[in-house]
């Protein structure tokens, strides 16, 4: 076999390996890092109380709102019951949406958006494919599906209302009132943003998949755990 032929074959194999690396290995690494962050977060929590009887109901009065944390610090974890068996449940939520945060299979909190439980929009970004495939199955969420945020003190439960597919420049989907950056919010929303492609689906990023959820209640950790958290 000629040297030139070997060179081309080698190039082809290396490109193939690159695809394997991007679609598989980045997730192996990112999931391990995310798991370590969740364990670190859980280690700071008081030991879990045995479930009190009768089982706690979700509270619908004003929830406590945690203080903002610094960039890269852990806010809590994100639990999407629909994604059990599919992706990380729970995945860490960290402050900021830089690649150093998202590449560790974490959901990143848009620093300009509101805190969890606050009136306005608690907006999160996550990878669709690669680096943990955090929000890969966002397209399987249906209206009414729960999205749950766990912090050191509180469970916050939101329910999916709808979704839309937008171009990447439509950044006001994370405004306190999505698409109306000048309006004063009255509702507590949670927004998931991730990549989407009209032609390549989960493999492309020419568009953004935006899923909206609205707050339905909260629970003090000391009182129990929401039904859908396993």
């Amino acid at each position: 076999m000629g040297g030139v032929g070997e060179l081309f074959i080698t190039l082809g194999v290396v490109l193939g390996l690159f695809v394997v690396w991007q679609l598989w290995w980045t997730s192996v690494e990112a999931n391990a890092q995310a798991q370590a962050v969740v364990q670190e977060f859980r280690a700071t929590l008081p030991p879990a109380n045995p479930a009190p009887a009768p089982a706690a109901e979700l509270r619908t009065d004003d929830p406590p709102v945690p203080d903002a944390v610094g960039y890269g610090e852990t806010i809590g974890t994100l639990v999407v019951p629909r994604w059990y068996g599919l992706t990380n449940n729970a995945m860490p939520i960290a402050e900021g949406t830089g690649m150093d945060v998202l590449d560790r299979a974490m959901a990143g909190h848009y620093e300009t958006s509101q805190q969890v439980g606050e009136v306005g929009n608690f907006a999160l970004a996550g990878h669709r494919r690669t680096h943990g495939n955090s929000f890969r199955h966002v397209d399987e969420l249906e209206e009414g599906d729960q999205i749950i945020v766990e912090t050191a003190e509180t469970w916050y439960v939101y329910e999916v209302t709808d979704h839309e597919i937008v171009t990447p420049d439509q950044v006001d989907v994370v405004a306190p009132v999505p698409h109306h950056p000048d309006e004063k919010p009255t509702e507590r929303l949670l927004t998931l943003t991730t990549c989407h492609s009209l032609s390549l689906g989960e493999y492309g990023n020419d568009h953004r998949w935006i899923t909206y959820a609205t707050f339905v209640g909260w629970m003090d950790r000391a009182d129990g755990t929401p039904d859908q958290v396993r």
Partner: protein
Amino acid sequence: MYAWIFRHLPGNTFWRVVQSLVLVAAVVAVLFLWVFPAVAPYLTLLEGDPAVG
């Protein structure tokens, strides 16, 4: 090139195959751990905008 390397590995055919596999594994490890992470920001095979995936 590969035939030349294979010929110059010591031992019988069995040991040459074992050594070849070790060499391949080493190359893949270097690619996965150092080379690919370094070039990934410049290689956007499926992505128009590398900002968010």
